[in-house]
């Protein structure tokens, strides 16, 4: 890097020139916010509070969307009513120490608003577990190393589901404590429902096949980039 470039990058809060490997599509939420700010008249820009993200009503001047680096968990034969089990992992180590995390929102996306005839009215259950110290004393099964964060039922009508994980994400800033989450989506069968035959289960899980991916939107406030209160003339 030339000296000028490294100084310019430093003024932009970057230590090196980023080199993306497999750029992902730009999340529409970021594109919308970017376009809205770009079209603000300069007088409004001056008045707008650059240290607050009004779209989420939280302090912040950096918004990142982290791609999920987790993987699907396959347990051979489908378990009782389970349609999907996936490990989620978001690497928050890119956050600078001086940045204050003010919001973290998990988005679970499906490829379309799904009104599958086969699953019309079908209710699913979603569980999110936080995993922690997996095998301190050689525990082989990681079942014991998880804590239920969210449990809710839903009828798969919407394109995405949003969950506020601000508290959990703050803990992930310490990389050793960031062991990700486990997402489970199962057919809501209630306690007394007998496990459907495998074929039937697979047809009930069809609409969950429209599951696309998960991402984590994180808002942070970097004090360096806050406007020094400058006395107006």
């Amino acid at each position, binding site marked *: 890097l030339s000296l000028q470039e490294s100084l310019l990058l430093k003024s932009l809060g970057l230590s090196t020139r980023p080199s993306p490997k497999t750029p992902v599509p*730009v999340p529409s939420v970021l594109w919308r916010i970017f376009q809205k700010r770009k079209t603000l008249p300069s007088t409004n820009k001056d008045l707008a509070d650059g240290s607050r993200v009004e779209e989420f009503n939280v302090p912040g001047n950096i918004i*990142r969307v982290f791609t999920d680096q987790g993987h699907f968990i396959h347990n051979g034969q489908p378990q009782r009513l389970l349609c999907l089990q996936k490990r989620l992992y978001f690497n928050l180590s890119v956050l600078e120490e001086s940045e204050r995390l003010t919001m973290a929102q998990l988005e679970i996306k499906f490829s379309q608003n799904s009104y599958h005839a086969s699953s019309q009215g079908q209710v699913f259950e979603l569980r999110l577990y936080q995993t922690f110290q997996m095998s301190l004393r050689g525990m082989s099964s990681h079942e014991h190393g998880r804590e239920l964060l969210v449990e809710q039922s839903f009828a798969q009508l919407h394109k995405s589901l949003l969950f506020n994980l601000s508290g959990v994400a703050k803990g992930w800033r310490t990389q050793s404590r960031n062991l990700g989450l486990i997402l489970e989506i199962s057919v809501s069968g209630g306690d007394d429902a007998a496990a459907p035959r495998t074929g039937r289960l697979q047809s009930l899980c069809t609409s969950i096949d429209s599951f696309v991916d998960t991402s984590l939107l994180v808002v942070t406030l970097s004090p360096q980039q806050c406007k020094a209160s400058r006395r107006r003339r």
Partner: protein
Amino acid sequence: SAHYTPVTPSNLCKPRRLYISFSDVGWENWIIAPQGYMANYCLGECPFPLTAELNSTNHAILQTMVHSLDPEGTPQPCCVPVRLSPISILYYDNNDNVVLRHYEDMVVDECGC
């Protein structure tokens, strides 16, 4: 007695156009948007007497007066940004995450002495 040299208006202190192109500095593969922006800069004279549109401080008025009396000893006041506005940049970081970052004071809107 102060000597007074009329200044053509075009070289008075004001914003000058400066377009920063990110592709010119080879940043086009990690900056998603904008591809560049008008940063502008301040350039021009702060002559005696300072007129209102030159956005001058009281000290600048004083300095131009002294400069008019002793041009060799005291320079003219500087022409500097007095109103700036922010920009937001959308880019990929090293982990392929998409980042929208807000930067204060990146565009010169007004200059003053």
